[in-house]
C-alpha cells in the first residue's frame, strides 16, 4: 500500500457546520473498516479539534479551504488536517510549551503522535497518528484493495474553490458507499430535506456505489457535492464508458426515478455522473 495515498481525502470550506461533514466522513470510514468504536470516538474528537482550530484561527474567522486526509499505515491511522491560512509561529514549539491551546492537548491526549507542520506558502498541517492495535488486538481491518498506486489525484488547489462545495475522493472504491452516503445525507439534512427525500438519498448513494464497484475507471472515485435549500447536487466519477446503463429504467437502477436530473458527461479520465435531487414538498 502506498503510504502517500490517502484512503479518503476531503476538501471543504472551513465553517463551523463543516465539522459535521468531517465527522460523518470518519463514521463512514469506520463503518467500512469495522473500526473499534473507541478509536472512532478518539478520531472524531481530535480531528474536530484540529478542524475547529482552522475554523477559528486559520483565516481570521472567515471560511477558507481545508483538507482532511485519512491514511492507513501498517501501524495505524494517520489523519492530516491542512489549511492555507495565516499559520502558526513555530508550531512545533507551540506543542512543546503547551501554548498550542486546548485543542492540541486534546489531540495529544488521544493520538499517539501529533505534529504541527508549517506549510510552504502559508498555512499549517496538523498530522495525528493513532495506534491501530490495543493489547495486540487490531482496532480496524485494513481496506481490501489492490495496490493503491494510481494516477495523480486531483489536487484541490487546481480546482476553483466554489463556496460550499464539498469534494471527497475515496480509494479503494469500496469506501464510496459509507463515506459518500454519510456526507450526502448530512448535506441533505442541512438542506432542509424532509425525511422522505432524505431517505431517497440512501437509495441513490447505494445505487451509485454499486455502479462504482464494477464500473469505476480506476481505483478511486471523486464526488463533488453542493447543498442549498431543498436541493442537493452531486457529481461523481470517473467511470468507464457505458455508464449510460445507469439511466435505464431498470429496477436495480432507481436513479432516473429518484433524481430530478441525471446527466452523464464524457471527460478525458472517464464518465462523470451528475445528479440533482430536489425536495418539492
Amino acid at each position, binding site marked *: 500500500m502506498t503510504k502517500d495515498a490517502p484512503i479518503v481525502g476531503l476538501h471543504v470550506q472551513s465553517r463551523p457546520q463543516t465539522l*459535521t461533514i468531517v*465527522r*460523518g466522513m470518519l*463514521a463512514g470510514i469506520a463503518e467500512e473498516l469495522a473500526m473499534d*468504536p*473507541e478509536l472512532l*470516538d478518539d478520531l472524531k*474528537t481530535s480531528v474536530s479539534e484540529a478542524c475547529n482550530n482552522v475554523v477559528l484561527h486559520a483565516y481570521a474567522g472567515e471560511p477558507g479551504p481545508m483538507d482532511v486526509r485519512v491514511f492507513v499505515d501498517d501501524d495505524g491511522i494517520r489523519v492530516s488536517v491542512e489549511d492555507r491560512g495565516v499559520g502558526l509561529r513555530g508550531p512545533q514549539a507551540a506543542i512543546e*510549551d*503547551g*501554548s498550542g491551546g*486546548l485543542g492540541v*492537548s*486534546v489531540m*495529544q*491526549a*488521544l493520538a499517539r503522535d501529533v505534529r504541527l507542520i508549517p506549510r510552504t506558502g502559508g498555512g499549517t498541517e496538523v498530522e495525528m497518528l493513532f495506534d491501530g492495535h490495543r493489547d495486540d488486538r487490531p482496532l480496524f481491518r485494513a481496506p481490501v484493495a489492490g495496490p493503491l498506486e494510481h494516477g495523480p489525484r486531483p489536487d484541490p488547489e487546481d480546482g476553483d474553490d466554489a463556496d460550499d462545495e464539498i469534494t471527497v475522493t475515496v480509494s479503494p472504491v469500496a469506501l464510496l458507499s459509507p463515506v459518500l452516503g*454519510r456526507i450526502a*445525507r*448530512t448535506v*441533505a*439534512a*442541512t438542506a*432542509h*430535506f*424532509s*425525511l*422522505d427525500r*432524505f*431517505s*431517497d438519498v*440512501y*437509495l441513490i448513494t*447505494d*445505487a451509485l456505489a*454499486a455502479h462504482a464497484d*464494477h464500473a469505476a475507471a480506476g481505483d478511486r472515485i471523486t464526488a463533488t457535492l453542493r447543498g442549498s435549500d431543498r436541493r442537493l447536487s452531486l457529481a461523481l466519477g470517473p467511470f468507464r464508458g457505458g455508464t449510460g446503463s445507469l439511466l435505464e*429504467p*431498470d*429496477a*436495480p437502477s*432507481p436513479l432516473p*426515478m429518484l433524481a430530478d436530473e441525471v446527466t452523464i458527461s464524457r471527460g478525458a479520465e472517464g464518465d462523470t455522473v451528475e445528479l440533482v435531487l430536489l425536495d418539492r*414538498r
Partner: protein
Amino acid sequence: MTHGRVTDQGVSAITRGDPLRLASTEELFERFTRDRDPHVREELTRRFLPLARKLARRYNGAREPFDDLLQVACVGLVKALDRYDVGRGTAFSSLAVPTILGELKRYFRDLGWAVHVPRGAQELAVKVEDCSQQLASRDGRPPSVQTLAQYMDLPLEDVVDALETARAHHAASLDAPHDDGEGENGSLVDTFGRADPRLLAAEERLTVCAAAKLLSQREREVLCLRFVEDLTQSEISARIGVSQMQVSRILRRSLARLRELADD
C-alpha cells in the same frame, strides 16, 4: 457561570472579596504546589472548569444527565491538580486532559456498560423513529430532518447518526422481536397491513426486471408503489400500514437484493 457546586463556591469567594481571584494562574499553581492550600485548589478548579465541561460534553449522550458527567470530569480535574508539578515545566492541560478523560471513561466502565453504549444508539434510533411518526401525524407530512432535531432538542448530527443506525443494512431483521409500544410483542412482519387488491394491477406492471419475481410479495409491493406508482415513502407507509422508516428499509434491502441477483 452557573454550573455545579464548584462554581458556586467560586461565586461565594467573589462576594468575600477573595484576593485569590486576582492572582495569576501561574502564581496559583506555584502556591498550590508549595502549600496544598484547599482554597487555592478551589480557585484553580474554578478556572479550569471550562476544560472539564468541554470534555464532559463529549460524553453527553441520551442516558446520563450532563451535570453528573460534569461532576465526574471535575473529580478528574481535581486529581490532575493534585498530581501537577509546576516545576516540570509542562502545560497543565497536557496532564489534565488525559486525567479527566480517564476519569470519565472509568465512570462508564464502573457503571457496567461500554463507553460506547451501542444500546444507547439503538434507543436513540427508536426514539427518532417515534418522534418522526408523531410529527408526521401532527403536521400531516413527513418532518424535515431539521424539524425533527428541533423537536427532539438534539443536534442535527445526532439525529442523522440515529437515522443511520435505524436504517443500517443489518439494523433490523424483519423477524426480530418488535415492541409495538402497546405491550404486545410480535415480529415486525405482524405489523404489516393486509394486501391491497389495487396493488395487484400495479404489480403486474412490474415486469421491468425478471429478478423481481424472487423478492417477497411485500418487497414487490413496496417497489411497485415507489417506482411504478411513484408514491413517496410516507404515502407508501400510509397505504400499507408500516412506518416510513420501515418502508425505507424495505426499499433499501430489496434494491440491494435485486442488484445482487442482477450481478449473478
